[in-house]
């Protein structure tokens, strides 16, 4: 009985949650006029919409731009944040706790407020250290390379990491960083997976800072492209929906491939 209840509950919410996504899928196959009327059944315009999109925009290049930024951002960010989260939790000290709480402050100011100072900063890099100046991949990644959000996340999860594993590691003669790499990282796979998903999605969908720092059309990322397409007086909604779908696919794929790490059961334990 309880099982049926669970399935019903989940089923109901699933339909609710999936509905807008369904709308996107269906809209991809409809012509613009029907999309505006909120048509919910598919039609046969998918190929036409896709061809229009390919003909008007260089989707491949936009894709590569977004991919390059997001992959680099994800890899570096979670590595850095996990090191810090581990450090703050395992090697606790009053001084470090103070620093930790100070770092949290950095999450609290809306990004828009720091945009101009950041822009000025990177503007000055453009003349002194060009490869991290404005309009570079590095400039997009650096401001959020290390975030209190991820550090906070890793720290909280590290609280659930058994200290006895560290002891065991030391007894086995591993160095501190060795313990981190050989014991902590494999044990915390689910945490890394979650962090990777979140970071990738945030980076992939990030809009405001790339808008400001990227300057040439060649470097455009997906959110900027979609914003431009939607801004026309008479937008081609069919084309827009296909573009959105193409933009959404990678995040779905990343999620699919990483979610298997949320498998029930213990991963690594003290024997």
């Amino acid at each position, binding site marked *: 009985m309880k099982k049926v209840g669970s399935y019903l509950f989940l089923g109901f919410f699933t339909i609710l949650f999936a509905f807008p996504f369904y709308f996107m899928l269906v809209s991809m196959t409809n012509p*613009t*006029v029907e999309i*505006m*009327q*909120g048509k919910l059944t598919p039609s046969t315009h998918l190929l036409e919409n896709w061809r229009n999109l390919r003909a*008007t925009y260089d989707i491949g290049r936009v894709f590569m731009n977004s991919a*390059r930024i997001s992959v*680099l951002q994800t*890899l*570096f960010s979670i*590595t850095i944040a996990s*090191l810090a989260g581990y450090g703050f939790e395992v090697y606790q000290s009053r001084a470090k706790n103070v620093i930790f709480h100070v770092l949290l402050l950095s999450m609290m100011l809306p990004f828009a407020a720091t*945009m*101009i100072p950041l*822009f*000025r900063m990177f*503007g000055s890099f*453009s003349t002194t250290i*060009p*490869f*991290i*100046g*404005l*309009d*570079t*991949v*590095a400039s997009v*990644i650096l401001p959020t390379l290390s975030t209190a959000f991820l550090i906070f996340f890793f720290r909280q999860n590290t609280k659930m990491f058994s200290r006895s594993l560290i002891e065991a590691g030391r007894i086995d003669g591993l160095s501190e*960083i*060795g313990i*981190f*790499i050989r014991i902590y990282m494999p044990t915390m796979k689910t945490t890394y997976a979650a962090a990777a998903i979140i970071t990738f999605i945030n980076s992939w969908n990030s809009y*405001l800072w790339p*808008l*400001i720092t990227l*300057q*040439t*059309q*060649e*470097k455009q990322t997906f959110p*900027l492209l979609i*914003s*431009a*397409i*939607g*801004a*026309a*007086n*008479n*937008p081609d*909604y069919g084309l827009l929906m296909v573009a959105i779908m193409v933009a959404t696919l990678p995040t779905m794929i990343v999620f699919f491939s990483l979610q298997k790490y949320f498998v029930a059961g213990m991963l690594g334990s003290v024997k």
Partner: protein
Amino acid sequence: MKKVSLFLVIFVLGVLAGCGSESSTSGSDAKETSEGQEITIWAWDPKFNIAAFDLAESYYQEDHPDFSINVTEISQQDSVQKMNTIFSSGGTQGLPNIVLIEDFRIRNFLEVFPEYFVPLTDYINVEDFMDYKIEVSSVDGEQYGMPFDSGVAGVYLRKSIIEESGLAITDFHDISWQTFNTLGMQVKEATGKPLFSIDMNDLAHLRMMMHSSGYWYTTEDGETPFIDGNPSLKQGFEDLKMMLDSGVITTHNGWDQLLAGFNSGDVAGVLQGNWITPSVKSEDSHSGDWVVVPVPKQENIDTSVHATNLGGSSIYVLDIDGKEEALHYISEVFGKNIAFYEELVQTVGAIGSYIPAAEGEAYKATDPFFDNQPIYQDFVTWATEIPSVNFGKNTYALEDIMNPVFLDYVNGADLAEGLKNAQAIAENQLN
């Protein structure tokens, strides 16, 4: 420790790798050729604005074959964000040579960051252009903007629906909003359809009404809030509420819903700037059934005319490398080329603000979609009557203050009090 420094090395390498794969270097986009430069332009809408720039490029290339433009498609909102950020940081890196800016916004920039804009005074003959477009971008006698599309507005109506209600299109010519409301009620009664829809989050229609009477949210100086005691504003509020209450107009939420309304036939018409024409034409089954009539005027306001404007933008040249080339491109094509404007209206449907071109054959063409009405000529005729208004630099701020007042009024609050409050808030907030 060793591993930490290893990470450091990987980090730096990664950054280098990330940057090394760039195909272009950062810095100015303008590429020098032996004769001219490539000019960068920021504009939105590939079928309208960008198409115009491309068309202009081909005209300019007849005499300047080495010239080329590089248009970045970017929404107005995004380009305003970028410009504000760059201007406020005091630098010029990342700015385009030419930028398209909506007329409502331009004074923000001209009054706060004038040093970034190149005056076009010597490159444009202001008498050739519609008055109200010229005034928008002139400061202290210097002309900064090259007027582009005229946002002259008209009431678009579905002929069959009007006639089904026992009315004739001519009934809608040269009337006041009061009469419009009466006619609209007849249409609503016969067919159940409203005449047009408005977005409650946006006072575009109020702006149109005020503009048709030569009024605005501010007095002529563009600075002093003129809310309490503004007869045109009050009349506009009252007329809109009257039409909402009688069902003659309805509401929509968002651009796509506006388009869906009249394209599906649920709404019998639309009142917007003429740039809505391509959207109206996108529904093939309506061909031949649309007409455009002049906007009604405000009763009780002497200065009110049957002409108004909504939106529209002008072209600006920024003070960076390549400005001479950009100036020539703009002034020779947009400034004087009649053939260009004729082709523009024929292929893109954009009605320019260049008066000499409007006398040409292209503008006299009849449009079968609009029951063979010469809509371009009609629009141009109306455009010449539009009063000049100083939008000032606080239009959007004032509108955001007025929006809740309008809503409260529609929901039954006292108008006089609402206006008094708004005047106080406006004076308080705007320096």
